[in-house]
């Protein structure tokens, strides 16, 4: 089997004022080639003005099997939302 080259995750900022957004991944031997490949693969039609490449191996992800414990506790904290509080209409928009 051929030797594998590293996998990189690609993030692109569509224009100033927006965050970089994950667009996909690619293989490259190093970060310089990863950036060049990202430019060719993901920005052929003016998709952005800035690219980040991050080694996929550097990403730590939450475990989808534990998504319940991880995210469920926020569901019952309705007092974190503005609609939980009753303000009379006379007060106006708040």
């Amino acid at each position: 089997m051929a030797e594998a080259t590293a996998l990189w995750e690609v993030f692109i900022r569509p224009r100033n004022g927006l965050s970089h957004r994950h667009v996909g991944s690619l293989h490259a031997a190093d970060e310089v080639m990863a950036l060049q490949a990202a430019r060719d693969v993901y920005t052929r039609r003016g998709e952005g003005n800035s690219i980040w490449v991050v080694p996929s191996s550097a990403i730590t992800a939450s475990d989808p099997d534990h998504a319940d414990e991880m995210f469920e506790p926020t569901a019952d904290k309705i007092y974190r939302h503005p609609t939980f509080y009753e303000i009379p209409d006379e007060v106006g928009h708040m």
Partner: protein
Amino acid sequence: MYSQGLIGADGRTKEDAAFLAAFQARIDAEEKIEPKDAMPEGYRRTLIRQIGQHAHSEIVGMLPEGNWITRAPSLRRKAALLAKVQDEGGHGLYLYSAAETLGVSREEMTEELLSGKAKYSSIFNYPTLSWADIGIVGWLVDGAAIMNQIPLCRCSYGPYARAMIRVCKEESFHQRQGYEIVMTLARGTEAQKAMAQDALNRWWWPSIMMFGPHDSESAHSEQSMAWKIKRFSNDALRQKFIDATVPQAEFLGLTVPDPDMVWDEGLNDGKGGYRHGPIDWDEFWRVVKGGGVMNRDRIKARKKAWDEGAWVREAARAHAAKRAARKMAAE
């Protein structure tokens, strides 16, 4: 392009009924399945095969058109064709990445293509004999691909659906540049018009075969539909393609080479449609199994590219290692 006619999918799976029912409930609720989610083995296997075939089709699909880049009749046509072929390479890469999220490596997929184990769309085993073929390929082959890919944008597997959205955005120029080429020929001299008709005659049937066997013959289609990998059956998409394409041919004054084709009021739930004549499935299977004019050439060309690119991959790795060492020393 081109995975509607998935060849040899096998959705059999061994999980227990409760697991499968829970998975199906997520699918039915239109939840997307993401890479690390629990999924039936059959779902994973079907997707690896489908996305792999799709990726290989994009890459092999660069060959019949790449063949004409140096002979494009004007700079405008050459720039457009170059951009289209480059897009197809990009499509292959988006799709390989999507397949890799399911646990198959790029190297495994490449080796399966080069060894002939993996399939790709049969359409690319036909030769592009004249410049008119380049027009017809853009119009019909990319046109059929778009029909097939638009519903894949809603595929239940997130990474595949996202890759398809990107691909679909890029495809419409492909079809339009193809149609423009054919239109230019159809409005040209008698010889040019004849060249366009000849290309249409050769590509029509292979294009409608791209949608795969009839629903009654496609064994694993039902499971793919239930899992929402596929949204429409082969025959439904083929009908859509034919209904869209026949009027486009008429506009050009070209004739679809199907003497049995008739307008049938009863098709499409009474809205009417073009009923096509019998498809030569022996021809389809012959080409799938390696008997097409170009099967050997296509794989030979991919092998040559892989072998002759070996020094580039080695050099890139050596350069990366050297830079990494230098960086370490400096720190």
